[in-house]
């Protein structure tokens, strides 16, 4: 067995541990987000604040589209299509930033404030915690983009890209549950 083959099999073994570690991290994060979701149903019950429905749909679509571009970036990295990989990563970061702007500037710029009782506390708690994860995801994407530009990933070795992609999709999964809980479920009190 050559040195290169040995190194690659060691890398694959390490990869399995890395993946397991990342998924365990997601499980621990799930408790945090589930707690926020339960808080929403406990405090808001069958009601919800009067939020801009169009804005909710737009930012959800933007995040969904960003997930698609992240998927394209990962496939491109697996096939060493460097240009597609880098462009898709940038697109993901731009769309992620647009989502952040939608939440922080437009949603938080609305009528509800964090100190406005249960509606304010839950809305800002849920969107704030999620936005924090989106922001760290964007930083993660930019680091991977920088490494990609330096040619640090190959079709066989790109754990950084995979971890970044999985993290970004996880943030999307969280929003899949948060979107209906915040914007769609319940009625606006008169």
């Amino acid at each position, binding site marked *: 067995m050559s040195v290169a083959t040995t190194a690659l099999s060691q890398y*694959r*073994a390490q*990869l*399995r541990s890395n*993946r*397991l570690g990342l*998924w365990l991290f997601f499980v621990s994060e799930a408790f945090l987000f589930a707690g926020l979701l339960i808080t929403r149903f406990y405090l808001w019950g069958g009601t919800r604040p009067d939020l801009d*429905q169009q804005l909710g*749909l737009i930012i*959800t*679509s933007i995040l*969904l*589209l960003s*997930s*698609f571009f*992240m*998927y*394209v970036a990962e*496939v491109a990295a*697996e*096939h060493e*299509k460097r240009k597609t990989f880098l462009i898709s990563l940038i697109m993901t970061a731009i769309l992620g930033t647009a989502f952040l702007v939608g939440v922080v500037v437009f949603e938080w710029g609305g009528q509800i404030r964090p100190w406005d009782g249960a509606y304010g506390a839950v809305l800002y708690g849920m969107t704030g915690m999620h936005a924090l994860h989106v922001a760290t995801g964007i930083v993660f994407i930019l680091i991977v983009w920088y490494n990609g530009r330096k040619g640090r990933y190959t079709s*066989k070795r790109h754990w950084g890209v*995979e971890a970044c*992609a*999985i993290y970004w*999709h*996880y943030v*999307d*999964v969280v929003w*899949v*549950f948060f*979107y*209906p809980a915040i*914007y*769609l*479920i319940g*009625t606006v009190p008169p």
Partner: protein
Amino acid sequence: MNDKKRAAYRMGVIVFLILAVLTAVEFYLASISGTVAGLFILALIKAALIIRYFMHVNRLWADGSRE
């Protein structure tokens, strides 16, 4: 290699389109006072699609020989 790549891209487009349609259905259901259960089931389906196809959860128990 090219076929594999094309198939992967195609799969990504299909999953994205399904997610987009499900999101539109969610929005429509809510506008006609959809039930919590209905919206929750839709969210579960969307999450399952992302976890299976975008997050590649099956790689967790793969032997790593693909990489």
